[in-house]
């Protein structure tokens, strides 16, 4: 290759690669961190640009396959600039004692809310229900009632809780209680109790991006409610694929050491 060609290619690569690398940088101070946008594809086109679409009934249209939009390695990446997660002493104690091998996700159990896995997902809207379909981990779904019903008085605790939703303009607001205390918020092991209450606000900012803002309230492990923000990206032309984690899980028995490293 000639020197001139190398220089030209180098300049082109620098122009292409540097913004991409910056976008990959974990951004604990960014309000809209890259979230879980970290499963690569060799043939992916950049997300399309353009206005967010609407359904015929005027509600926002969340169709498409998304990636990211929640914490994978570290919940703190979703905090506003300069703010720390308000763990109380008990929360800090529980987190410090956790071992990576015990992370439910490593053991093929669900992420719960608001954690995301580094796999694509899809929102399916109907007049009465919204479903969030996850490729992994695990290959499962969330069910959100948008028919006006209320939470039950004392729901049995579950991995995804009991969710009711409604639309506020361009935003889908999802209120969830009735969680179990088993899942972790991230690889670092941020804890929660069965008193967890989440309010998620899903807004399709434009055709290619969805902002997920989640307010977490859990008086058992946190001193006050706090809000994290992550942005998911559209994966044009993508479809969900099967992912049955339990099929051949061999990692958990080889995992060593405390939680804390992504």
């Amino acid at each position: 290759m000639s020197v001139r060609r190398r220089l030209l290619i180098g300049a082109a690569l620098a122009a292409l690669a540097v913004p991409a690398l910056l976008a990959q940088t974990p951004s604990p101070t960014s309000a809209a961190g890259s979230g879980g946008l970290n499963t690569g594809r060799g043939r992916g086109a950049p997300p399309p640009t353009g206005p967010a679409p609407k359904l015929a009934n005027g509600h926002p249209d969340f169709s498409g396959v998304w990636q990211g939009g929640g914490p994978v390695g570290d919940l703190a990446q979703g905090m506003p600039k300069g703010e720390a997660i308000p763990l109380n002493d008990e929360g800090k104690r529980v987190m410090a004692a956790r071992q990576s091998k015990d992370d439910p996700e490593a053991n093929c159990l669900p992420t719960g809310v608001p954690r995301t896995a580094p796999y694509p997902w899809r929102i399916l809207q109907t007049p009465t229900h919204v479903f969030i379909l996850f490729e992994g981990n695990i290959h499962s779904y969330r069910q959100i009632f948008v028919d006006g019903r209320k939470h039950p008085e004392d729901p049995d605790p579950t991995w995804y809780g009991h969710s009711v939703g409604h639309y506020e303009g361009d935003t889908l607001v999802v209120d969830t209680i009735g969680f179990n205390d088993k899942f972790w918020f991230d690889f670092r092991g941020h804890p929660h109790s069965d008193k967890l209450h989440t309010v998620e606000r899903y807004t399709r900012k434009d055709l290619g991006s969805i902002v997920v803002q989640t307010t977490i309230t859990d008086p058992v492990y946190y001193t006050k409610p706090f809000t994290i923000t992550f942005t998911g990206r559209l994966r044009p032309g993508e479809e969900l694929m099967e992912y049955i984690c339990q099929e051949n899980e061999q990692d958990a028995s080889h995992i060593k050491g405390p939680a804390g490293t992504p």
Partner: protein
Amino acid sequence: MSSARVKPMLKNLMKMSLGAALAVVGLLVSGAPISAHHSFAAEYDAAKPITLKGVVSKIEWTNPHARFYIDVKDETGTFTWNLELASPNVLARNGWTRKTLNIGDEITVQGAMAKDGSKMANARTVTLANGKRVFAGSSADAEGPAPAAAPATGR
């Protein structure tokens, strides 16, 4: 990723052929593949890179990770190594198929060893029998960009 790491990488990119360089840029633009259901650093030691040359004895095109096993000979005998790839879905999206590796193939693997000392490693790149080097799309890339390698179906 710090800018200190970006500079040598760009320098390396410039040494590569145009096709290979663009393939790597494609991976960067689309996101460095971290594709594990577990913390990479909790299981593998990025500071313990390993290169293994052997014959593929078994392939598991399964979740949560595709795996393959190779028989590696040294002066003391033959040992079977268990090598972790990304999930089949991530591999497929990066151009692999379940036939990219085949039993009997003589291959070379670069990866990171398991922390617990077992004969397991996380594969980062695989050099196939035909000399083509393919990116394993694995969780190892939580630690940084892939070495120069084309997608499995590249060129």
